[in-house]
């Protein structure tokens, strides 16, 4: 038997919108370079590396990425800590790139004497098949974020 009350489809415009959302969202995500819902599924893997620094009265000094470990969630640790040397993954790189500002704010909180905090994310292509060593050096493209710390 058919349930009479639910059998009629919604209006065309509603179905059309739902269809565009369901089919078009992955392609829109890719076009806008958003990591959410692009479903690349291991297709794009990059190398990424993170540098952190704070500037105080004594000058600028490097902050080890691993020193953040206890202030990060389980999931953030999986993405951020490998970047101390070389992390791998495209989605992870995109997620990290979008969160550099948040990292600088955390640095300000962790270093009360800091005037400014900076985060620098380098990302680059995979090493080629001839050298499958993940740590192989290659050109990186850098994205930077900085924050003035309120004292």
């Amino acid at each position, binding site marked *: *038997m*058919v*349930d*009479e009350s*639910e*059998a*009629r*489809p*919604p209006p*065309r415009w509603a*179905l*059309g919108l*739902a*269809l565009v959302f*369901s*089919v078009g969202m*992955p*392609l829109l995500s*890719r076009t806008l370079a958003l*990591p*959410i*819902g*692009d*479903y*690349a*599924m*291991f*297709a*794009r*893997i990059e190398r990424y590396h993170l540098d952190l620094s704070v500037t105080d009265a004594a000058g600028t000094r490097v902050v080890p990425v691993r020193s*953040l470990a*206890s*202030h*990060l*969630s*389980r*999931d*953030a640790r*999986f*993405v*951020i800590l490998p970047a101390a040397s070389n992390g*791998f993954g495209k*989605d992870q790189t995109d*997620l990290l790139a*979008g*969160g550099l500002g*948040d*990292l600088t*704010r*955390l640095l300000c*909180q*962790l270093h009360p004497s800091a005037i400014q905090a900076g985060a620098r994310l380098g990302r680059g*292509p*995979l*090493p*080629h*098949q001839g050298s*499958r*060593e*993940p740590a192989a050096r290659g050109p990186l493209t850098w994205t930077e974020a900085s924050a003035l710390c309120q004292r």
Partner: protein
Amino acid sequence: MKARWTVAVHAFDARFDGLVDGRIYELLRIGLALLLLLRSADFTRPWLSLDHYEWVKGFDFSWSVAESPYLVSPLVPGLVLGARATWLLVRARFALALLLLFRIRLRWIALLLTLFDYALLFADRYRYFHHLQVLYLAIAWLTLSPTRPASGDDLRPAWPLQLLRSALLGIYFASGTAKLTVDWWSGDSLAVLAHLHQMNGRVWTWSSNAFGFGGLAKLVCFAELSLVLLLSLRATRRAGVVLGFVFHGLVSCVLPVSTFGATMALLLASFWPARKCRVSPPAVRARGTAGERAEDVADVGV
């Protein structure tokens, strides 16, 4: 011009009209509820080990920061969940998944689950995984599914299933086209994944020896794009479902993809039942009723 528009509108209507065996909605609901339960807590750990138990202890997304101050980095600006809200949401989500399993207030529970899932996912940008996005979207889709349970030869409207099928085709298309790159086709991406010990098992050893990284990469890309075509055509739809089952089975043997293979296999099942349509679909829309008995409808495929 007007005639073409009319034809296009009728074609669009025809894609969403019709009825399907209602039991597919029950299968999808039960399967999705079980997958969400399995993925959001490690309660089967004593007798069943799953990929994600490597990092999920207790409830997934439980508060895991050791020391204050902590990194606040939501994917949606302003969406900040502290320790207490997180504690509450992860438990409420598990309870709601149980209610979904037992079909209690289906659409409301699916809506609440969607809100809780995405609140937890978007409160920390580093929680995002494609397999979670697929699972949560499918849970969101349940808000559109028929509310009354189906059994025996009960028929239910096909349009929610058609939307789910479209979303699945979109995923395969996106995944397949994303692999049309030099890095993927050369096998470099697979080589790095292998180097990072992401790939393992007998299937991987045999297939990488047989086809090489490049050959295997091309096969994966070809399989994903083929699925789009096979699942779109009535004549090959069920062959596409079988190919999809095999494909996800093999991927799950090789890569630690958590519940992704099972989720996709379950969603692929949505392509199995034939869609049955009235003899004149537009006429049904025009008269605003859809009540038909099973013997009055004809199979129209996808």
